[in-house]
């Protein structure tokens, strides 16, 4: 049962009110009908309201656009996803393990299964396009989180490597190629690559919750531009995004093209939607190429979120329902409103934003294997027994030295929460955690000191030698 445009507007109004975020803009494709809705304030500095065509930073949804672009190179035979990427970029060493680096493929980048510990690394970099190259020295020293090709652990920097491969292949940049091969064929007019272009139009800016239920506008519009490929530069609208999503639903055909103009072949569009790597939690979620997938009861949806300073963007397609959704909330706490939106638009699920199903608390599970200190490049995870004897205390410590140009006061705060086991290998947060919903921590690789890996927030961290501070 689709939401009519007025029902969608009511739902958006309700969600903004309920969550106390400044505003939201949404476009849906359901039952062959397009609907858009906008509510609230797009810019807390200026008081300007959200309009249906308000632009916003699409964040990591960029990865689906870049994947689309990469597939056009696969189609023309100039890129093989399963050749070592050093065949295209011999000087690039992705990861300190030289032998492993020589085996990594572009597929490993596109499904986050490369196992290199660089996930959210921000180095001191120049502006795009030069700044992309500033990542090369650092990534050659990056430790190994896992062997490649085993599980997915969200890795933004893999996409910087993908752009470098594209540049070596074509001599052109990601921005240039996307404009030529995807944006123009789709006839998009509001998808741009810089604030200098976005400023010609209504553009939202992000915000952060402050005291007493208020939000403060972001002091910084965007994250560093060198991260263009993982997703810091594209400003778009829900309408443009919806056209892009409908192209994917139509297996590569330009929507409303009136003919057989294509951005992708059907095979390419389908390949992007074919699971190629699962999350450590199991086969029900993981990645195709670019797309995140979630599977339940034989139904699969494909989605991606996008973060920006104080903003959460979202895109979802459900081929079984011929349904697409594009949305943006201008608050760092935008995921819960987006979860409500997905529930309203996609009641049959599976919602990628649904909180984890929490089984019963297991009092028989030994806590010792969970305890200790785990690390990935920008975060340390410390797990100690809870002082009152009930489960454990999880402490998430940001490491801001590796977040140059991408820190905010809330980002550098240490998050602490209690967690209890619900399975031999799973802890679930007990009480308020991330943005109000439960967080699951999944553990793997049991060893003599306990589990070697912890997985949360779509990312793995590996046990370090040290014991956690009490």
């Amino acid at each position: 049962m689709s939401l009519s445009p007025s029902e969608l507007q009511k739902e958006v109004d309700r969600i903004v009110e309920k969550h106390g975020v400044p505003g939201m803009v949404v476009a849906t494709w359901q039952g062959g009908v397009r609907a858009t809705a906008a509510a609230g304030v797009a810019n807390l500095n200026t008081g300007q309201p959200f309009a249906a065509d308000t632009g916003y930073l699409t964040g990591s949804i960029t990865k689906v656009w870049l994947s689309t672009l990469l597939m056009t190179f696969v189609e023309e035979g100039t890129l093989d996803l399963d050749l070592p990427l050093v065949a295209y970029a011999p000087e690039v060493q992705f990861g300190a393990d030289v032998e492993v680096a020589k085996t990594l493929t572009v597929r490993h980048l596109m499904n986050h299964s490369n196992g290199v510990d660089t996930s959210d690394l921000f180095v001191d970099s120049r502006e795009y396009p030069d700044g992309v190259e500033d990542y090369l020295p650092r990534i050659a020293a990056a430790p190994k989180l896992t062997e490649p090709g085993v599980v997915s652990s969200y890795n933004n920097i893999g996409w910087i490597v993908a752009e470098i491969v594209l540049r070596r292949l074509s001599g052109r940049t990601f921005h240039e190629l996307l404009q030529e091969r995807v944006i123009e064929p789709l006839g998009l007019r509001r998808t741009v690559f810089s604030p200098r272009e976005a400023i010609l139009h209504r553009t939202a800016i992000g915000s952060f919750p402050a005291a007493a239920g208020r939000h403060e506008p972001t002091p910084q519009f965007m994250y560093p531009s060198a991260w263009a490929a993982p997703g810091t530069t594209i400003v778009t609208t829900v309408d443009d995004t919806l056209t892009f999503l409908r192209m994917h639903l139509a297996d590569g055909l330009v929507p409303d093209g009136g003919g057989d103009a294509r951005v992708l072949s059907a095979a390419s569009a389908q390949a992007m939607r074919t699971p190629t790597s699962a999350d450590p939690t199991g086969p029900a979620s993981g990645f195709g190429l670019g797309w995140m997938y979630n599977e339940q009861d034989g139904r699969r949806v494909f989605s991606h979120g996008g973060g920006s300073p104080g903003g959460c963007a979202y895109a979802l397609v459900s081929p079984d329902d011929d349904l697409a959704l594009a949305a943006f909330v201008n608050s760092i706490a935008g995921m819960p409103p987006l979860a409500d939106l997905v529930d309203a638009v996609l009641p049959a699920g599976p919602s990628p934003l649904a909180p984890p199903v929490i089984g019963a608390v297991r009092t028989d599970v030994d806590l010792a294997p969970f305890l200790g200190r785990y690390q990935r490049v920008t975060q340390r995870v410390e797990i100690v027994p809870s002082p009152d004897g009930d489960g454990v205390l999880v402490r998430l410590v940001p490491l801001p030295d590796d977040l140059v140009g991408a820190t905010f006061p809330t980002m550098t705060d240490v998050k602490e929460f209690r967690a209890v086991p619900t399975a031999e290998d799973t802890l679930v947060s007990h009480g308020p955690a991330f943005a109000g919903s439960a967080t699951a921590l999944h553990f793997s690789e049991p060893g003599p000191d306990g589990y070697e890996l912890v997985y949360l927030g779509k990312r793995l961290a590996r046990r370090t030698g040290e014991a956690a501070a009490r």
Partner: protein
Amino acid sequence: MTMDAARLRAWLTELIGRFDVPGATLGVLRDGQIVDVAAGVLSRATLVPATPDSVFQIGSITKVWTATLIMQLVDEGRLALDTPVVDVLPGFAVADPGVTRTVTVRHLLTHTSGIDGDVFVDTGRGDDAVERYVERLADVAQTHPLDATFSYCNSGFSVAGRIVEVLTGLTWDAAIRERIAAPLGLMATVTLPEDAILHRAAVGHLGEPGRSLAPTTVWALPRSGGPAGRITARVHDVLAFARMHLAGGAAPDGTRLLSTASAAAMTEHQVDVPDPAAIGDSWGLGWIRFDWDGHRLVGHDGGTVGQRAYLRVLPERDVAVCLLTNGGDTAGMYRELFAELADVTMPAPFAPPADPPAVDLRPYVGRYSRAGFDTDVFARDGSLAMRVTVNGLLGDLLPELSREHLLVPVAEGHFATRPEGATQWEPVFFYTLADGSRYLHHGVRANPRVEAGAEPR
């Protein structure tokens, strides 16, 4: 809300309608207090209303800010006005080796270096944009010999901005922020689009006023030209900057940004403008100097891609007026507004006499060229006309600059031209230097004659 603000707002609203200006903000500084009002919209595409806090591109008014940064360094003893540029910018070079060796900071601030001023090169969005731009000047030729005359020089201000970068270790953008905006407590003064986008930001409009005005598709000129014209600010902030200058270099809280001597030196006569009808009669250091009915003013105009800005400061009364606009017949609007607001009689608008004199046209015919700009002056049916062809990046961005003008005689060597749709006349002035070389002065720029009597191509 005072009666003054309400009256100003109503007046501004009426004026923007009459002159086809999409949106504008107007501020008046009097007795240390700033009143600011807004009218119209930031863009005719988005129809977002302009508010007093909306930020507009102030264009070349930026040059007074860059000059202020230089004078702060003079106060700090880091350089002097007559320091050769090469002494503070190792590696600096232009095509002429003599100019390379001897051009000084003063030449840059007074538009007398003769370095071709309209070099528009996009060196990217990075922090090294100004540095890379200055490197590109190595091939740039002279429009006129060093010190020989006056020709508006944007590139010279990018060089000045680079000097600021090298001596402070900051980008020019950070220097503006830390050394002027922050001490003055300016809340809405930015230099980069990613900062402007946090505010209500005006979009320029191009085309013919009353006929074809439309929002620009390119918001701003490249970052390489920052020190010459990329500040985007609300009108209140521009007047707070003027207030600091009126106070001899001090902020209202007493913080000193400039010595009184430096603030004064910026307003004092450095060089005459060859064409007395162009804009003001002379230049100081950064400031343009005006004589209105015996009263001395300083100020500057700004023009970007479809936005125009005007600042006039009347030191004897501690008054300043600033108008920021995003397109239309802004020259006409400025004229009407400032005449009343400054409470000083402005010079009569430049215009040809009702009965233009008969003038021998032959001495003026020819081709006048500087880099990127070719001006062909020719006689047609007994009248003088000129065709301006703008090449390169600027020509692509602003195609309306490339056009033909009919020149109406005003006096010997002095002509008037009026673009289509505009209410104001512009002067075109022919003159000869001591060494006999002939020049055409238009748009505050000197164009040397390269061919006598050439036919238009």
